[in-house]
């Protein structure tokens, strides 16, 4: 990716803390138009915190986040909401409203933000549900759906407004390999058919390497590397290679000291 391409997300020197704990330390990241960027890392590496910062759900201690050319930290609530109308977010468990049916969940953004008539809203909703292979489940309640169907329904709701930027939190988590692969193909189709820029948070290697144009690896709040699939595979950093080889971090444990600590 080159700087000639349009930047959809630009993160500069982003730092975030939870009290005394540094959650993100000097993150610098650009995401370009029609790119699929995957953010990877172990549990607690700062993926979700970065996700919340990029969405404006949490404000950084320092640094800046530009989304679609707008600096998030300088926006008032109204402008932030206007910006978010161009962003779709698919949550890990779908985050569907349990009191609404699948169709009602998916059409909610259209009902809230557009003046479209009922008929048009229904047609648009059915199109998105069909795209996600959920056409026959539109009248079911979220509690009646499987994990994969919940994710697809959440994805249908995220793309109902045809956003320029799509976030997907853990698309493969908790899914069987076949369903996971189907969802990965769906993500690629969305990018190709709707020209979306997509940011995915995951720790599933297969899924990440299947869909990503570039991958960012985080560890303990620090950005280790951002690069293409080949650059990540070639990375010599032990934290990256351990992750790729599914190895636990090399920690030497002093058994005597640990026992002493437990019994003192």
């Amino acid at each position: 990716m080159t700087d000639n391409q349009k930047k959809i997300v630009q993160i500069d020197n982003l730092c975030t803390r939870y009290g005394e704990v540094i959650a993100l330390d000097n993150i610098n990241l650009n995401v370009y138009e029609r790119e699929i960027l995957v953010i990877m890392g172990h549990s607690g590496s700062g993926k979700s915190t970065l996700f919340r910062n990029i969405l404006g759900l949490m404000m950084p201690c320092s640094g800046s986040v530009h989304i679609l050319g707008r600096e998030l930290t300088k926006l008032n609530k109204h402008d932030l909401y206007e910006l978010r109308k161009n962003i779709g977010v698919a949550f890990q468990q779908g985050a569907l409203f349990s009191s609404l049916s699948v169709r009602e969940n998916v059409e909610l953004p259209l009902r809230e933000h557009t003046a479209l008539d009922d008929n048009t809203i229904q047609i648009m909703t059915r199109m998105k549900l069909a795209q996600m292979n959920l056409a026959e489940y539109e009248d079911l309640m979220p509690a009646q759906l499987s994990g994969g169907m919940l994710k697809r329904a959440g994805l249908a709701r995220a793309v109902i407004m045809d956003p320029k930027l799509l976030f997907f939190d853990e698309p493969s988590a908790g899914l069987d390999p076949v369903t996971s692969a189907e969802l990965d193909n769906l993500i690629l189709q969305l990018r190709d058919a709707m020209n979306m820029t997509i940011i995915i948070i995951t720790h599933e290697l297969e899924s990440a390497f299947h869909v990503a144009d570039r991958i960012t690896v985080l560890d303990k709040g620090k950005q280790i590397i951002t690069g293409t699939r080949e650059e990540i595979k070639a990375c010599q950093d032990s934290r990256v290679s351990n992750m790729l080889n599914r190895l636990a971090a090399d920690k030497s444990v002093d058994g005597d000291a640990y026992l002493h600590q437990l019994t003192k």
Partner: protein
Amino acid sequence: MLSKFINHLIDITLRIGRSGVFLVNGLWKVVTPPYKLFPILKQLHFIGARSLLVITISGIFVGMVVALQFYDTLLRFGSVALLGSAVGLSLIRELGPVLTALIIIGRAGSAICAEIGIMRNEQQIDALECMAIDPFRYLIAPRLLAGLISMPLLTTIFTTVGIFGGYFVGVILFEVSPGSYLGGMYDSVLWRDIVMGGVKSFVFGLIMIWVATSKGFYLHLSSGGNHGSEGVSKATTDAVVLASISVLFADYILSAIIL
């Protein structure tokens, strides 16, 4: 020790401030358009219509017990003719608003807190924010408005059936004359008493929804970072206890101001 106390004080001040801002934000969304008619009707049905049975049954028995107790006391002083006044005034001014509020806190307040807490846990409130839908307008304002409308209506029903419960015990069982029961009530109950009952029920409705919604909404900021199902259950218990105590405290303050 001192620093721990100061930190605790700061934490309490922050919570009070956060709750105050929460209420002002919620009320602002109640009075400013766009109004969410369907969510308001849904909450009116949940808080109001679905509480009718429990309110009616409770009202009848409370009215009967009050009449029984007053009849026994008034009989000692030979003042049984005052039974209607005693039942009417106690129900309209005190028991109607307070008991209705406590029943609705247990039935609807706990459910509202748990529902919003679970929405917080399952990222549904984050999803609303990400869809550029204001959670205050979508979740809080309809519940606040429905609580403010439902509570005075439910209190009126509770008090009315309570008066008829008292009528049953006084007039039918103990043969107090219907004229003295209803006439005495008519003569002794003033507009001021009815206004007092109305104001109390309105304020209690506000307290109930405010406490229930804010406890659920700020579940993620609760002390100890206790989220999950245990966090929801703790927040729900806290909401019921806090709302009940707040209602009783507000009852005393309002009585002292109005009387």
